[in-house]
């Protein structure tokens, strides 16, 4: 017994010593550092892993193929958040100061972490790219100076999906009297679309019910029994991780037609549909980008990354929904740095400089083609005021083996979104006593 604790003491001391040593680790001076907040474990690992792989592969591609962004190599370090806010904040704090110029840009990949970092990023002057997630009102760059919900917020997503529903029903006018249910992950992420859906319900006269599913979402029997009873015309799914596949299974169990279920772009990946097997056939989901590995960027990745044995994912997973989203995300981030380099020079840039790059990001179709993303992503242009850029998605359907698009790009109605965003941003600014930037004075 006595011996045990001696060894234990030594162990703890040793660990502490190593930790101290670890803090003093050096970084190459001419590298652009990007912290990577990822989760490869826990209940959300099946979704977190492919995204992280896509992101890593693209950064490696940039390094391997191009020797970095305009010659500035990208260094990145993953930190496991486990989708836990406190750990995410710790990861952020740990990595934000690394590299020659500090962290260039942070992608929290968790709405909860995004909320927490929204409070910290302005102080640290590090931009947050929350592509397709995050706070919807952070689209307003005058209040949320450091948040960039590129390609679409949840409000945009909800609007896009409802737009699709309306298309199917033959226009918004036909929605009157219809019943729309939202099955959502009971967290800020799941709750985000509710205000917009309520607004739409008010405008178009459909009945809207929101049904929460508690984290992690394996318990949905009661929810789907209610759905069976209410028979809504459409069910929108705002799930993440295991919740998605469970929803699809439960839908099958109560015989709810899968082709009346439309998931948000985080509820429409391979791990969501495969566990339900045939039960998933016909399930619909929005997508910010395209699926598959047929794009030229993938060829480059295979050639420059996988053939060198540096690939993060299994080869057969390349091209999956979340993998591609990781790619796109990394693409946008590196493009932002590239943009900023044009102004500040080809060297490691700090967060503030990168923010300038994001705010002046203008990815044209030509640039998309050049980068090998043609068909994968829609062009995007940001400004000081508009931190979202574009808000377009397509609806895809699962046929039991693969996704295929059933709609063209649908754009969110900015006329609807912008006033809501402005109001919400104003409220936030008041609460936090923030004086909004005057974007008209900034170039």
């Amino acid at each position, binding site marked *: 017994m006595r011996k045990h604790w001696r060894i*234990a003491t030594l162990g703890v001391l040793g660990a*502490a010593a190593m930790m101290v040593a670890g803090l003093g*680790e050096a970084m190459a001076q001419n590298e652009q550092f990007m912290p990577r907040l990822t989760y490869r474990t826990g209940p959300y690992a099946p979704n977190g892993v492919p995204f992280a792989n896509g992101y890593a592969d693209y950064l490696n591609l940039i390094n391997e193929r191009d020797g970095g962004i305009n010659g500035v190599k990208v260094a990145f370090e993953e930190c496991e958040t486990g989708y836990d*806010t406190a750990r995410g904040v710790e990861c952020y704090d740990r990595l934000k100061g690394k590299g020659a110029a500090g962290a260039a840009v942070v992608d929290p990949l968790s709405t909860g972490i995004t*909320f927490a970092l*929204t409070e910290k990023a302005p102080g640290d002057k590090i931009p947050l790219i929350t592509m397709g997630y995050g706070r*919807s009102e952070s689209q307003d760059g005058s209040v949320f100076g450091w948040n960039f919900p590129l390609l679409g917020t949840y409000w945009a997503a909800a609007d896009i999906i409802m737009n699709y529903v309306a298309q199917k029903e033959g226009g918004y006018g036909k929605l009157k009297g219809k019943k729309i249910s939202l099955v959502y992950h009971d967290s800020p992420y799941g709750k985000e679309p509710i205000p917009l859906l309520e607004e739409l319900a008010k405008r178009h006269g459909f009945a809207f019910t929101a049904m929460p599913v508690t984290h992690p979402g394996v318990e949905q029997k009661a929810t789907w029994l209610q759905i069976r009873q209410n028979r809504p015309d459409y069910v929108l799914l705002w799930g993440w991780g295991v919740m998605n596949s469970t929803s699809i299974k439960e839908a099958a169990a109560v015989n709810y037609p899968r082709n009346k279920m439309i998931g948000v772009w985080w509820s429409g990946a391979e791990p969501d549909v495969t566990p339900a097997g045939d039960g998933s056939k016909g399930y619909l989901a929005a997508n910010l980008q395209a699926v598959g590995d047929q794009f030229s960027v993938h060829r480059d990745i295979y050639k420059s990354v996988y053939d060198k044995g540096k690939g993060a994912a299994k080869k057969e997973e390349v091209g999956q929904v979340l993998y591609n989203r990781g790619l796109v995300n990394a693409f946008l981030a590196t493009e932002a740095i590239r943009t900023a380099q044009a102004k500040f020079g080809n060297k490691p840039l700090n967060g503030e400089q990168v923010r300038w790059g994001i705010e002046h990001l203008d990815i044209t179709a030509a640039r998309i083609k050049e980068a090998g993303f043609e068909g994968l992503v829609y062009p995007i242009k940001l400004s000081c005021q508009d931190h979202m850029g574009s808000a377009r998605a397509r609806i895809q359907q699962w046929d039991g083996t693969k996704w295929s698009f059933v709609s063209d790009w649908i754009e969110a109605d900015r006329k609807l979104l912008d006033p809501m965003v402005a109001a919400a941003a104003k409220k936030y600014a008041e609460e936090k006593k923030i004086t909004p930037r005057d974007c008209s004075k900034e170039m």
Partner: protein
Amino acid sequence: MLYREAGQFKTTYGDDQAVFPIRQDRWGMAIILAIAYVALPWLATDYFITSIMIPFLIYALAAIGLNLLTGYCGQVSLGTGGFMAVGAYAAYNLAIRVPELNLIVIFILAGGAAAMVGVVFGVPSLRIKGFYLAVATLAAQFFLDWAFARIKWFTNYTPSGSVAAPPLDIFGFAINTPDRRYFLILAIVTVMALAAKNLVRGRVGRSWMAIRDMDIAAEIIGIRPLRAKLSAFAVSSFFAGVAGALWAFLHLGAWEPLAFDINRSFLLLFMVIIGGLGSILGCFLGAAFILMVPLALNQIPTALGMPLSTAMISHLEFMIFGAMIVFFLIAEPHGLARLWALAKEKLRLWPFPH
């Protein structure tokens, strides 16, 4: 060895019952406080302050709260996270609804709110004991999680249900840098840890321990089990509530009910047990252990230049963490505080073995 106690005799009961009756302990404490108040803010990086010291102190505070209930009063609770949430949301609502309130007052009132909720959920402890009670406290945890997610008033109708702390200041002094936040937390934790120590060494603490050790005998010497248990729930929840408010306002800044979910409760229970049931010191040791081990495990491979994938590290972390818990329980079931007590006993008797 380091203890030189000859001649430190006590001439009053006050000296004899002091928190640190041994001079070397007083010096040690003074050194620790000096490091905490002077050296650390001066020397440590922001990362160390914000990601290690601040969560460590807040966890320690919450662990003290849980330890008062579980270690001193013998009522196992798995609902601490819920009580922290009460503190956090109470503080939020006070801060945005009554903006003129001083931050300190907000924290105290937040603790008070948590205390009231704690008392409500403590009522079953009169009938239910042991693991049954432990599981029953989960009801509090889940209910509170749910309530803050569902009842919009608590979140001031924010669409996402995630709330953010307003800008903080005390007497016009903005709490906006890591160091300032650290100082505020440190001061609160110092005061409250001392208060906890005072409670447990006095009448209240003895009545709790009496209930813990043998509730029937306690009743027969005139302790009212209801009052003792509920006071333990109240004080425990007060500490948890203040810790929750600090966690939300000064650590996270913005949060959602998930920040205070059941994992937080379990983590705190780990801290208390690994640190040592019935020991205030143990709360600090336990918090340090539970917080530091994963961080250390996480950073050691990088530091050693072993490029393991984050997934691998994370799985290893789980395994090592689990193994260490088992190992420590086997090595010393009464926690790190007991280890320290044994070590101290040895140092006091050095060079004699006993």
